[in-house]
């Protein structure tokens, strides 16, 4: 898999500092499984946190805290090694498979019309996290974003004003950009989209589609 579109550094900082919405953090983790480049970047953004931790003014723990913990150590199990990353074998990254299973064709897609289906992950909290399944040749209406939107391609590809996005690529967009993705091959495109605010569709088609998408 050759990945040519990565996250904005600012997004990785938000990931490291723990300030992304649940859906966006899940999307970042999914991409990290496939992308060594971003994994390296995250080591740096985590390091900012590590350095700050060493520099912070310590706050004493209650007396007896250490003893309390030492008393528990013998009874806890160590974490199993299964946490260590195994290579990704399915189209669905493991972090995401935890929520949707590992087969994109077994998802209960909801048809929205205009060649688009969606599946809402219903993660709760701020923003939205959903999968979109777009038929070949279909273009998603022109839209801008009130805040941030991350997209990870799981199957197929699309093109928009920024270029061509293929499996593993991420689009990291904010309110500065209005775009209109078009599926550019004979294969359908399935992508995972996470936002921290609703999308705004522009134009008449957008207004028609908006209620169905509810993004």
């Amino acid at each position: 898999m050759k990945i040519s579109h990565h996250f904005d550094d600012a997004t990785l900082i938000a990931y490291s500092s723990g300030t992304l919405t649940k859906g966006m953090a899940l999307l970042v983790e999914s991409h990290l499984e496939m992308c060594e480049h971003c994994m390296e970047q995250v080591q740096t953004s985590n390091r900012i946190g590590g350095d700050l931790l060493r520099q912070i003014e310590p706050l004493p723990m209650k007396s007896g805290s250490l003893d309390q913990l030492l008393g528990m150590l013998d009874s806890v199990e160590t974490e199993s090694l299964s946490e260590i990353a195994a290579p990704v074998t399915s189209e669905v990254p493991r972090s995401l498979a935890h929520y949707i299973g590992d087969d994109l064709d077994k998802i209960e897609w909801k048809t929205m019309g205009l060649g688009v289906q969606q599946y809402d992950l219903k993660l709760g909290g701020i923003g939205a996290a959903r999968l979109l399944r777009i038929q070949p040749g279909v273009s998603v209406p022109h839209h801008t974003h009130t805040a941030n939107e991350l997209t990870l391609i799981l199957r197929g590809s699309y093109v928009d004003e920024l270029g061509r996005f293929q499996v593993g690529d991420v689009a990291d967009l904010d309110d500065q950009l209005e775009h209109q993705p078009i599926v550019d091959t004979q294969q359908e495109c399935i992508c995972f989209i996470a936002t921290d605010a609703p999308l705004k569709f522009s134009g008449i088609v957008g207004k028609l589609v908006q209620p169905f998408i509810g993004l």
Partner: protein
Amino acid sequence: MVKKEESEEAGVNAAAALVEDKKKQIRDEWSACLTSLAETRDKLEFSRLYEYFAPRVKAYIIRFGMSPAAAEELTQESMLSVWRKAHLYNRSKASASTWIFTLARNQCIDRLRREKAVEYELPEEEADPDQRHYGEHAVLEQRMEDAIAKLPEAQAQVLYLSYYEGKSHSEIAEQLGIPLGSVKSRLRLAFSKLKAHWGENSEN
């Protein structure tokens, strides 16, 4: 006269190098300690790590917006994870402090998400949280790691608000009264400077 200035400058550089060495020593010492904990499962080793990191993790968690009681509890959970996961630690990937930071951060996120899920059902009026930590930045700035301390204040500030106060980019934009794009570009600049600095002076 010129000579004296030169020798003073050399002195200052040598002192800075010493400080840098000292910091690297501390970093390496804790990374070695955590690595050895994985092998020995030695409680004394764990106690050493605890004495150093638990009060720092607690301070971090409080800044993230937790009550002192919750911070105490989450710190215990984080330190317990250190014990349970020590064998997964790889010092060629991160220093001990970076690794423990990520464990503590994940504990905070899990807890906040659980609490926020409740908050959405019962929105409550609260004192302006933006004012809560006001004035503490000055103290923190003196305690920053060199590389971060060298950043322009505007860039250091957005890093603090992210890492220390757990604010999203949109929240930072609102608090500082600047566009979202400016928050991101400040973070990007800070990130590339830190990377350049750390590139010469690797963590491990």
